[in-house]
């Protein structure tokens, strides 16, 4: 069967162009792509993998290990046996992996295709999307979702301060079990201006103030650790609010018709994208180029509500393919949603996460 598979792969490749024949040589080996699983991997499958396999015959194997991607990369490189070809990763982890020499340095303009109008890649991606070893594919957002049925119709929550307001918005909350996002939200809910959040968090008083704010709701919080938990907790009405990745809440809203709402106020947005493990550039570069071109980048946004990282792609985002609804108002980057957004400061967290994780754990145990 594999023989005929390769044969047909070859004939398809021949039917294309000379460059396609070159890639068919690699079609012999499937590509191991590491990602986050769930609705997110599904969107990559639809937007990148299926068209890629159709075009070249190379199979894509999905591995759902991005949550522990850095640990996996380090273990594989240390053991001298790298089996992953392309890894979906957060920029903060990519920075660490890059400094440790676990992933390849990328020459963006050479590796990535330009926009349809000829703009080179380095100018087509949104600011910060291209790092030394990293190519962002999407902009996603950490938001607080809520179950609309748990509040009266005339009193639905809309700001991050509402999450900390037990009096007007009673019920349990679910927050991710880590300091990132929670400390930022606590300070913003406590009246700190967006621009001062990270400067304040670098000080002892800032951390104390954030934890003191979190103390006010601590007894009403269920802490989650897997991305699939918050939509489940909301659907079970186990909690009224849950922090989540915006795509997960969107998925539950449109695909499962859950009565969920999203508080876009003070959304903490960050990027997510590809890195190439050490020594895998030759194997992965064709798929890397394909999956980051304008058309593919825009296509992914038709399956999940994460904003494309290319400006040329953002212009051509269409409707949600499974249900046909307009994606625009569900995007983190949609103007009204984006008005009070806070960019996650990766440099701050790279320095302070060891210490703040410890403080956060100690605070939780108190």
């Amino acid at each position: 069967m594999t023989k005929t598979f390769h044969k047909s792969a070859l004939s398809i490749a021949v039917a294309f162009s000379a460059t396609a024949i070159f890639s068919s040589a690699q079609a012999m080996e499937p590509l191991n792509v590491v990602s986050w699983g769930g609705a997110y991997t599904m969107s990559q499958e639809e937007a990148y993998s299926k068209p890629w396999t159709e075009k070249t015959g190379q199979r894509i194997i999905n591995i759902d290990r991005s949550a522990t991607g850095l640990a996996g990369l380090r273990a594989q490189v240390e053991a001298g046996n790298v089996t992953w070809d392309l890894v979906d990763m957060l920029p903060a982890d990519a920075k660490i992996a890059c400094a440790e020499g676990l992933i390849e340095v990328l020459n963006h303009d050479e590796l990535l295709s330009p926009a349809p109008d000829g703009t080179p890649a380095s100018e087509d991606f949104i600011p910060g999307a291209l790092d030394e070893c990293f190519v962002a594919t999407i902009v996603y957002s950490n938001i607080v979702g809520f179950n609309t049925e748990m509040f009266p119709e005339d009193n639905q929550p809309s700001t991050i301060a509402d999450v900390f307001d037990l009096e007007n918005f009673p019920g349990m909350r679910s927050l991710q079990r880590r300091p990132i996002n929670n400390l930022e939200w606590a300070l913003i809910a406590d009246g700190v201006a967006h621009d001062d959040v990270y400067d304040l968090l670098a000080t002892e008083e800032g951390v104390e103030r954030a934890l003191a704010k979190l103390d006010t709701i601590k007894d009403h919080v269920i802490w989650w650790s897997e991305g699939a938990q918050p939509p489940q907790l909301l659907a079970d009405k186990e909690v009224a609010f849950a922090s989540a990745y915006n795509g997960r809440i969107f998925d539950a809203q449109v695909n499962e018709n859950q009565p969920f709402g999203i508080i876009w106020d003070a959304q903490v947005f960050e990027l997510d994208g590809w890195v190439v493990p050490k020594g895998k550039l030759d194997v992965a570069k064709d798929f890397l180029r394909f999956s980051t071109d304008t058309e593919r980048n825009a296509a992914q946004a038709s399956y999940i509500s994460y904003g494309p990282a290319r400006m040329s792609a953002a212009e051509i985002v269409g409707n949600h393919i499974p249900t046909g609804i307009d994606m625009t108002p569900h995007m983190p980057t949609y103007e009204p949603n984006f008005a009070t957004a806070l960019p996650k400061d990766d440099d701050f967290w790279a320095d302070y996460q060891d210490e703040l994780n410890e403080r956060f754990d100690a605070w939780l145990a108190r």
Partner: protein
Amino acid sequence: MSDSMHGSHANPSNAGDNGVKAPLVAADGRPLKVSLRRALFKNKLRAILLVAPLMLFLLVAFILPIFSMLTRSVESNEVRTILPTTALAIQAWEGDGLPDEQVFAALAYDLQEGQRNRNLGRVASRLNYEFSGMRSTITGTARRISNIDSPDSWKETLMEAHRNWGNPDVWTVIKRESRGYTLSYYLAALDMRFDTDGSIVRQPESRRVYVDLMIKTLWMSILITFLCFLLGYPVAFLLASLPMRTSSLLMMLVLLPFWTSLLVRTTTWIAILQSQGILNNMLVALGIIDDQARLRMIYNEIGTIVAMTHILLPFMILPLYSVMKSISPSYMRAARSMGATGFTAFRRVYFPQTVPGIGAGAILVFILAIGYYITPALVGGESGRFITNFIAYHMQVSLNWGLAAAIASILLGLVITLYLIYNKLVGSDSLKLG
């Protein structure tokens, strides 16, 4: 009795040689002793060869990893290997004020070298555990000075690149961690740290995490073991005393969940115990509790204890059952016939005979419980969290493998100590799995 037989056997040979000691010989003329030893050696060799694959497997899959884990918990060669010239130069610094120009120059050289080889990340992460902000200090400085050749003063250049280089505490940390080994992982695991003057002090209260959690893990594992005993004993008794046909049906009820996936069993408890779950709905429907006052039975200690007791119950029931099965019913009948009441007969005759089964079951359940981390992570919420969750966290997320190894080693030491105490009190020869 065997002595006298031995003696009577040896005597004739002595007598036959008229007091002169001549060795017994086997049929082939070799001395019997040699021949016997050879035969025994062959048997031994065969036995060793038979277990050799297992021993090899244990060595590779069990003993070596544990050894490597133990070394990781004290190993700290990042500074030595990635900043080698600095590690050498800083030895001359006594710790007063800032080091001199020579050390700064050495650091600058190492950073430029590291930036070229792209291996600064490891040492940046390592030092960031000891001093928050070191990650960006190192990577940022390395980026900034990568094109500077030989300035007037490296000291000023570096302090300009990042203010942390003007902080003597940073240099203290670098000197301390340049020895190749470190105690800081163990100290961190015991909620302690090095003070800036090198003495060992407790962490400030806002950063103490592990000791309390370790005690809680122990205490909850003991509680779970006890609950398993309480619930498992009657079940095992029933299994052992019912007629075969009913007992094998009952046995299926014990074994079926045992064979079911751990995740399935854990998530089932979520469906049962959550506030909109089956149990709460039933209690509300029966009017026992108010709809507004649903019980919180999951995402806290109760969730962990209930789910883990259920999951580990078969490990208590099965050894108990096999021990009880081997107790002859005639002992109880004899006790009753001599006038003991049912309870006395149970207490003085039956129960003592089941103690080896309890011991085996308790050890199994306890050791499994203390190492569990998936179930507590899913149903334990915050208060039902185990120390093992932190080991997993440091292995997979924070990548602080040294700290994970230190916590794991302490846990291992604790379990071994407890086992030795148990062995002293109960005796391991009284363990019985069947």
